[in-house]
C-alpha cells in the first residue's frame, strides 16, 4: 500500500517535470522562430524586389547617365571583387602570420598586447577604419583610390583573421607537434607543415568569413574607394563597389535607380551567401564561426 502511494506521488512529480520540460521547449522554439522571421522577411523581400529588377544588362552594362533609363552595375561588381581581392592580398598574409606568431608564443607579454589590440580593433566601428585609411592612404596619395578602399577593408580583416588563426592553431593537439619534432623535423618546418597544415581548414574558414564580412562593408569605402560612375580598374583611381553604388542609388529620388539598388543588394547577398556555402564546403559541412 505504502509502495503504491509513493509510486503515485512519483508519477505526479514526473508529470510536473515533463510539463516544465515541454514548456521550456515551447519557449525556446518560439524564440528561434522569432529570430528567423526577420531573416526570412528580409531575404524574401529582397528576392521579390531584386529578382524583378535583375536582368542581364545589370551584369554587363555601365550605370546609365542621370535621366536615362536602364544600365547596370558591371563596374561595381568588378570593383567589389577587385577591392576585396586586394584587401585579401594585404590582410590574409599579415593576419595568418600574426595568428601563427600568437599561437607559437603564448606566454610573452608582447603576445598579450597584440591579442588585446586585435580584440579592440575588432570592435572599432568600420567608419573609423575608413577614417584611418583616409589618413594613411588617401591624404598622402592625394586622392580616393582602389588601394585606399582595400587598405580599409584589410584593416578590418586583419584582427579577424589573426584571432581565428590563433584559435585554430591552438586546437591542434600539442602531441602532433611533438611527434613531428621527435622525427627530427626542425621547429619551423613542424610549425608550417604539421601544425599550420592541420589547422588549414579552420584558418580557411576564418579567412572566408572575414571576406564575407568585408564584402558587405559600405562605410569604410565611402571616403576611400569613393565610387565611380565610369569603368576603372586602376589601383590609384576611385573605383565603384556594389555597396557604395547600392547606397547612392537607394537614397536617390529616381525610381529606376532605386530598382537597381534592390538588384545590387540581391547580387551582393548572393556573393556573400556563396562565400558562406564555400565555408561549409571547406569544412565538410561543419562550419564554425570564429569566436
Amino acid at each position: 500500500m505504502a509502495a503504491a502511494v509513493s509510486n503515485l506521488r512519483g508519477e505526479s512529480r514526473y508529470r510536473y517535470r515533463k510539463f516544465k520540460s515541454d514548456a521550456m521547449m515551447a519557449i525556446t522554439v518560439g524564440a528561434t522562430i522569432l529570430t528567423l522571421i526577420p531573416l526570412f522577411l528580409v531575404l524574401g523581400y529582397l528576392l521579390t524586389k531584386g529578382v524583378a529588377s535583375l536582368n542581364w544588362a545589370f551584369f554587363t552594362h555601365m550605370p546609365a547617365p542621370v535621366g536615362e533609363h536602364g544600365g547596370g552595375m558591371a563596374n561595381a561588381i568588378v570593383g567589389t571583387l577587385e577591392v576585396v581581392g586586394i584587401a585579401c592580398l594585404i590582410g590574409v598574409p599579415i593576419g595568418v602570420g600574426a595568428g601563427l606568431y600568437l599561437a607559437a608564443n603564448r606566454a610573452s607579454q608582447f603576445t598579450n598586447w597584440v591579442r588585446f589590440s586585435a580584440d579592440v580593433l575588432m570592435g572599432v566601428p568600420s567608419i573609423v577604419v575608413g577614417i584611418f585609411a583616409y589618413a594613411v592612404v588617401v591624404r598622402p596619395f592625394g586622392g580616393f583610390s582602389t588601394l585606399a578602399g582595400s587598405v580599409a577593408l584589410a584593416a578590418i580583416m586583419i584582427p579577424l583573421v589573426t584571432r581565428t588563426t590563433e584559435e585554430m592553431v591552438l586546437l591542434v593537439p600539442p602531441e602532433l607537434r611533438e611527434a613531428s619534432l621527435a622525427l627530427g623535423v626542425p621547429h619551423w618546418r613542424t610549425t608550417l607543415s604539421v601544425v599550420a597544415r592541420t589547422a588549414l581548414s579552420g584558418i580557411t574558414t576564418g579567412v572566408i568569413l572575414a571576406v564575407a564580412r568585408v564584402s558587405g562593408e559600405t562605410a569604410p569605402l565611402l571616403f576611400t574607394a569613393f565610387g565611380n560612375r565610369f569603368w576603372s580598374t586602376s589601383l590609384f583611381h576611385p573605383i565603384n563597389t556594389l555597396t557604395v553604388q547600392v547606397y547612392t542609388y537607394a537614397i536617390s529620388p529616381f525610381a529606376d535607380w532605386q530598382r537597381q539598388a534592390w538588384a545590387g543588394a540581391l547580387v551582393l547577398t548572393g556573393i556573400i551567401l556563396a562565400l558562406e556555402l564555400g565555408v561549409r564546403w571547406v569544412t565538410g559541412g561543419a562550419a564554425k564561426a570564429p569566436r
Partner: protein
Amino acid sequence: MGDGRGGEGAKVVMAEKLVVKNLNAYFNQNRALHDVSLSFEQARIAAIIGPSGCGKSTLVRCLNRMHEVVPGATASGEVLLDGNDIYADDVDPVQVRRRIGMVFQKPTPFPTMSIEDNVAAGLTLNGVEISRAERDQLIERSLRQAALWEEVKDRLRRPGGSLSGGQQQRLCVARALAVQPEVLLMDEPCSALDPISTARIEELLLELKSAYTIVIVTHNMQQAARCSDMTAFMYTGELVEYGETKQIFTNPTKRETEDYITGRFG
C-alpha cells in the same frame, strides 16, 4: 608470448649504446630527475617502471632532447650516444632526434596525411629526395617491421586517422622506424590500447629488438616483466634500482622496489 626475458645465462658484455651520466632535469625550478646514471645496451629492451610522477617520462624525453621542447624545461648532465654527448654545445637536437626515435603515449598519426604519407613523413618533412620506388620500398619495409603491412596494404592512401587505435600506434612505430633510427624510445606506448593491441605491440618489440636499442616506459609491471631484458625502477625522480628484469622482479635489492613490485604502493 613466449619467454621474452632473453639473455638467459648469456652473460656476454653487450655494447653500451646509450650511457646516461648524472642526468638532472628541471621544470623551471622543480627538479624532476636527480643525478640519474644508467646505460642502455644494443639489441636489448630496457623497461622503466615506477609510480606516476616519478620522472620516467622525463627520463626518456631527455634521451632524445625532447624534454627541452616544453617551455621552462631544462636538463644537465651527459647522455652519450656511441660515446658522444648529445648535450654537447655543438650538437643539433634535430640531428639527435633522427638517430633516436620516439613513440608517444597517445597514437599521433598526422591527420592531414594518408597512411603512406604518415610513414614517409620523417623523410618528406625533412626534405629528403627519394625516388618513387625507393619511397614505396621504404613504406612497405617500415610497415612490415611494425607488423601493420598486411592490414593496410590495400588502403595506403586512406587517412591515417581511419585506423583503429592499435593500428594507429603501430603506424606511429612504422613512422619512427622509417627514419632508420638506432634507438627507439617508447613512452607508455600501450596505455591507450586494448589488451590485444598491447600484445601486438609487445610482439613487435621482441621482433625489433635485435636491430635496435629499445627503451620503454610502462605503467604496467606485467608488461615490463614480459618483454624487457633490463628494468629500471624510479621513484620521486631518482633511479632506485636498475638491473636484469628477472632479478628486479624476483630478487630486488632495495626495499622500495620490492614494495612497488608487490603492489604495496604506487
